[in-house]
């Protein structure tokens, strides 16, 4: 009805519509215009900018770490090498939830809880957009398990790399040191760009000393990646220059022997240093207790590191070059030499009745032999280590002379060995005491310095150097562990110096002979303090025992040895060289709180010498038989 009454004016309707269509067409043109303007802005005006961004997106230059130089012993055994390893690395920004990730990882890889916490901490504290290692050194099984499940873990991948590896483990730990993750303090001392891809750096020992040589030069590769950072192809590469291989003067068998001798002592700490007296090349240098350097190479757990740091046995401490001990009687040959050079006759005799006292002083300086040695000459005094003889001798020489001779033999100074963090020891003098202790020098201190006690301190390496200098009759050799090559000519000024010529003292071979005779007698005469090792030795040995007090017994006290607690027991020392004529090897043994030098230290030296000379004999025999 209604619609019937309405008359459609189709022309009017069409006009209204066409008006609106014009507006619609205008709207379309406006939209086209907006799109075109925007595209001109992006594709023409800012084209260069976006081209750069697009290229940066997919072309990346990645540094390539050089393989670290291998370290060999002088007999060609690999002491430090690289082995392939697989590490799980993650980019924190690409991981959605650290806790979930670690939970899921632990489902397939069996990670214990402390390691889980460590991974979360690593991720939480990582630098932005860098891949951080989550688990190092995966087993083949773990690699396989992860690879199968890798689609579940965005931002986490397995990276193949090289891990530092020390075949002899703890035996060479202090000598070689170890590599560990680069810390912020390391970053200060190294060329940043060269370490762009390197994750580990030498922290101690040879690894630290020769870090620059061992490291090599970083390479690079230009790669194309996709949005997930996955490598698509390598566009260009510049290979890294591998680190320099090093050969050490160390004899691997002697080194292992030294380490095992110390290890087999009953819970005692100590050090053995053996060197070739002709060159100064160190043949063995061991410190015990030791640690496993491989633990650092595969990312040490904080718990283990703390345990090592806090252990009262201080396994990380290198006793060979950092341990400073009163040298005790081992310095007596030096004093004998000083006395002879100052006109003392070798026939000079002193009566030892068990103690010595200074004039106008009631204090008794005891000889280790309570009953006294009776009348002894110089050779006998060395042989039996008569304290009274040397008390008297020191008193006559005076502290100045004592200082001079000890200084000549290199005590109180670093030996200059090519290892980091060497300690200097200490040779006291009145000037030193006044400066450091603010106290005057007492004559009694001269007396006890004469038997290697008091303030006097020396490292086992210094003692070995003394033995070598004695063996060479005054020609001192500078100990070193890295064989000299063109590359290692860094701190290579003078290898040896003759302490006679330098100090301009008369080099009277008779003096040296007397001292030498005394030291041979120590081992081979029936009254020598180290006669226990002399009876059966095929090679002649010149040696000197030392038993240095850690704790002094009061004037009239009598103490049974059993009553002294372990940590106050005497240090056992022994220095030696062999053979006495044309000597080849010098050795120093220090066993902390080991009791007496003759009982504890000397047998170790003997075992090392046996190992050294027996092998020499074997080699000569095989040479002979092969020449038949």
């Amino acid at each position, binding site marked *: 009805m209604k*619609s019937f009454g*309405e008359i*459609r004016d*189709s022309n*009017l*309707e*069409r006009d*209204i*519509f*066409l*008006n*609106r*269509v014009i507006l*619609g*067409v205008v*709207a*379309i043109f406006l*939209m*086209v215009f*907006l*799109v*075109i303007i*925007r*595209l*001109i802005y*992006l*594709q*023409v005006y*800012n*084209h260069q*900018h*976006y*081209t750069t*961004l*697009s*290229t940066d*997106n*997919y072309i990346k230059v990645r540094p390539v770490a050089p393989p670290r130089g291998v370290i060999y012993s002088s007999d060609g055994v690999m002491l430090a090498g690289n082995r392939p390893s697989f590490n799980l690395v993650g980019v924190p*920004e690409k991981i959605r939830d650290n806790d979930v990730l670690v939970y899921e990882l632990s489902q397939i890889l069996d990670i214990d809880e402390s390691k889980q916490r460590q991974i979360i901490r690593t991720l939480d504290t990582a630098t932005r957009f860098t891949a951080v290692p989550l688990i190092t050194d995966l087993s083949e099984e773990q690699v396989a398990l992860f690879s199968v499940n890798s689609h579940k873990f965005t931002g986490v991948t397995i990276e193949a790399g090289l891990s530092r590896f020390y075949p002899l483990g703890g035996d060479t730990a202090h000598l070689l040191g170890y590599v560990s993750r680069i810390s912020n303090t390391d970053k200060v001392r190294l060329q940043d760009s060269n370490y762009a891809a390197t994750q580990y750096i030498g922290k101690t020992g040879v690894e630290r000393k020769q870090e620059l040589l061992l490291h090599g030069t970083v390479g690079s590769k230009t790669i*194309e*990646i*996709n*949005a*997930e950072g996955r490598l*698509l192809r390598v566009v260009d590469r510049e290979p890294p220059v591998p680190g320099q291989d090093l050969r050490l003067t160390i004899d691997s068998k002697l080194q292992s022997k030294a380490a095992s001798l110390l290890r087999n002592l009953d819970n005692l700490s100590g050090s053995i240093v053996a060197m070739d007296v002709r060159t100064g090349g160190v043949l063995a240098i061991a410190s015990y207790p030791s640690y496993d350097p491989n633990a650092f190479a595969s990312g040490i757990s904080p718990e283990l590191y703390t345990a090592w740091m806090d252990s009262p046995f201080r396994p990380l401490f290198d006793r060979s070059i950092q341990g400073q001990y009163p040298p005790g009687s081992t310095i007596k040959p030096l004093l004998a030499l000083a006395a002879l050079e100052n006109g003392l006759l070798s026939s000079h005799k002193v009566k030892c009745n068990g103690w010595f006292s200074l004039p106008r002083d009631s204090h008794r300086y005891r000889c280790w032999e309570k009953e006294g040695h009776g009348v002894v000459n110089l050779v006998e005094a060395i042989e039996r280590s008569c304290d009274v003889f040397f008390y008297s001798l020191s008193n006559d020489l005076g502290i100045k002379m004592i200082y001079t001779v000890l200084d000549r033999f290199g005590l109180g100074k670093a030996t200059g060995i090519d290892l980091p963090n060497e300690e200097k020891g200490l040779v006291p003098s009145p000037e030193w005491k006044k400066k450091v202790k603010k106290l005057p020098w007492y004559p009694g201190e001269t007396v006890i310095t004469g038997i290697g006690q008091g303030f006097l301190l020396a490292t086992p390496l210094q003692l070995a150097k003394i033995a070598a200098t004695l063996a060479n009759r005054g020609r001192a050799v500078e100990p070193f562990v890295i064989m000299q090559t063109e590359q290692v000519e860094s701190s290579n000024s003078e290898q040896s110096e003759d302490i006679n010529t330098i100090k301009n003292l008369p080099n009277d071979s008779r003096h040296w002979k007397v001292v030498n005779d005394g030291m041979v007698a120590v081992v081979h005469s029936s009254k020598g303090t180290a006669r226990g090792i002399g009876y059966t030795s095929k090679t002649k040995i010149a040696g000197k025992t030392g038993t240095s007090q850690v704790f002094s017994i009061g004037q009239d006290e009598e103490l049974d040895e059993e009553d002294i607690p372990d940590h106050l027991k005497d240090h056992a020392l022994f220095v030696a060289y062999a053979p006495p004529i044309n000597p080849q090897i010098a050795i120093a043994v220090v066993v902390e709180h080991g009791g007496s030098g003759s009982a504890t230290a000397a047998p170790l030296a003997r075992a090392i010498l046996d190992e050294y000379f027996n092998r020499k004999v074997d080699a000569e025999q095989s040479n002979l038989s092969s020449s038949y």
Partner: protein
Amino acid sequence: MRNNLIYRLHIDTPLLAGVIIMCLLGLVVLYSASEQSFDLVAKQGLRMLVGLLLMLFVAQIPPQRLAHWAPLVYAGALILLCLVLLFGTGRGVQRWLDAGIFRFQPSELMKLVVPLMVASLVAKKLLPPDFKTILIAIFVIAIPTFLIGRQPDLGTAIVVAASGLVVLFFSGISWKFIRNSLFFGIAIAPIGWFAMHEYQRQRILTLFNPDNDALGAGYHIIQSIIAVGSGGVFGKGWLNGTQSHLEFLPERATDFIFAVYCEEFGLIGVVVMLLGYSLIIARGTQIAIYAQDTFGRLLSIVLTLMLFVSVFINMSMVTGQLPVVGIPLPLISYGGTSVVTVMICMGVLMSIQTHRRLVF
């Protein structure tokens, strides 16, 4: 004779040509965007063929019949939308209905059904429509808009609402009414902000400063803009887009396929694409102008205009001028429902054009 056959099949040659050109262009870009997957291209080609058949089928139906059936079609589409909300599938959102052999998005169909319904409603009365008709129309528009918004699919909801409102605009409602509605709309806009999902708000915020969230939502926009910008005037060449092929681009076969196109074909390629679309738009506008009744006029101009609005929204979102709202590029983006819906719209246009009574 040939012309005769085409005429009898109710085919409009310029429109068909435009559609086929855009489809072919779409397949070429898709081949690159899909990492040269013949499977994907073949699948999309098959959907286009289905779309072409449906287009021909719809073209046979006279517009009067379409107007007559409109309420029924509208009711059916609403039921489908409700089904989506009840049984729909999709990642995080419910947009698809699984019909066994194929899945489709009923919300896409609404881009056709709502204008159809509103046009038929308005065309029954004298123009311009009275207030009551407008209210009914707004009610008709609001229901599907609300349902689509609930999926949630803000972009499509807006486009569907707009397609209905544009019908009203072309029906000649007074400017005064439009002005008052706009004021009213602005007044209630803040309410809309709070009614939005958090991710929708996030999208609008990131649009204004994509760098703020360079690894999250902004990442897509930044990478897309880099792709477009690095394409330059001439493009990097087909299959050579580094942004596209190294997977920096998100959704590069679907919503962001225009970025792939821009990167590989450059500004010149975009101009060519716009010319292709304008062939369709121009013909559609012409059909609307020559249409003989209000229903035909309104429906054809709105379908034409909304096609271009989709093009504009998609291009603007890819180039970072509009928020990422999930509107595909008509006939180019990978996806069946969108292509088929556009084809059906084209069929409707052909029907309106070819069922004219000849009046000289």
